[in-house]
């Protein structure tokens, strides 16, 4: 079915990177496949931030996110020999990180009968990570709202609107259809927008009683 408003097909990281960056990445991957540890170290440094925050957006726990991101890179290293250099590395990495994070979360939720208060975890993590107080406060509020969204809406939303993947890439990473992702994204954005609006209204009322 033709879309009445054609979407720009590729707004994700693969398109945003220049051809030179892509060539450099392939070179690093090829060297890593040949056993060059320095080249692999550069790949880790380049993708660590996104891997970490992707895991964090599922787990809302700084230490667990670090464990998962670390495990993801070990897994990537193990699978490098069979990695097809024609594939987009970032999408592959996202898929590994997300699968590990979701598995980790399920195990953690099983082991923990009473879930830790996500809001407090978010705030603790922000205290550690924040560089700018005002920005950190906004990030805290956004994460509190995101943490309250169902996972099936939250993950597509963070991958698309924060990490900058295209809808096609999100569908590939999560292994669901394009139309399902479009629907979940629509639902997630609507939920987030509504909760964000209510939060701002509540804060305004508290500031001006």
């Amino acid at each position: 079915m033709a879309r009445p408003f054609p979407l720009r097909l590729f707004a994700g990281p693969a398109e945003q990177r220049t051809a030179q960056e892509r060539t450099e990445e392939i070179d690093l991957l090829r060297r890593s496949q040949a056993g060059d540890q320095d080249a692999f170290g550069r790949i880790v440094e380049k993708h660590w931030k996104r891997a970490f925050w992707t895991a964090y957006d599922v787990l809302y726990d700084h230490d667990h996110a670090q464990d998962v991101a670390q495990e993801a890179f070990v897994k990537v290293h193990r699978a490098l020999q069979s990695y097809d250099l024609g594939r987009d590395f970032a999408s592959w990495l996202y898929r590994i990180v997300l699968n590990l994070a979701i598995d980790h979360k399920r195990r953690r939720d099983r082991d923990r009968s009473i879930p830790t208060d996500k809001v407090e975890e978010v705030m603790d993590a922000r205290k550690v990570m924040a560089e700018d107080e005002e920005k950190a406060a906004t990030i805290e509020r956004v994460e509190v709202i995101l943490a309250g969204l169902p996972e099936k809406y939250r993950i597509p939303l963070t991958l698309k609107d924060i990490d900058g993947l295209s809808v096609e890439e999100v569908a590939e990473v999560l292994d669901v259809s394009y139309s399902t992702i479009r629907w979940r994204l629509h639902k997630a954005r609507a939920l987030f927008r509504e909760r964000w609006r209510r939060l701002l209204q509540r804060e305004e009322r508290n500031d001006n009683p």
Partner: protein
Amino acid sequence: MRRSRLESLLHDYVAGDLDGDARREIELHMEREPSTRALLDEVRAAHDALQTLRERAEPPVPLPHIQAAIAAHRFDSKPVLHLRSEGTRFYRRLAMAATLLFAVTAGLFTYNRLSRPESPPRPAPPLTVFDPDRPSAEDRGLERFVEIGSSRDGITAEELIRRLEELKKDARELRVTPGYNVVPIAIESR
């Protein structure tokens, strides 16, 4: 245009996911419907809030930990058997135990066969002619007595056994009564 459809398109508009024609169409729609502008502001505020997460701090890269984990994995992963499940291990151990048991049994059997001494010729049992005139108390309950021969008459043990086997074919019950140098053979007729 339905509101949910419009919201979805406004999100795409703000995110920069619409191409030129679609963007112009949305802008024309907003001109025709000024109330859409408020919705656009709300969508943009939510989008901008989400974008702040892109500015999250750079977490420290634990590269030495990752390299150590990779090295540890490389060391651990040499034997393929490490990757096998507990179930597979159990069956492998069971197969090894069965093989060991078979080898020990076969070895003992072969050893016994090879080390067994040559068996000497069996001497004829001390059989003699049964005296039907003086049957023992036990023998009297039987219907008849049969004399099968005596070693004193030069009959070999094999011959005595052959005769005994012949008697077994006809007898319903066959009883051998031991005695001093005398083994009377008693049978009960069918």
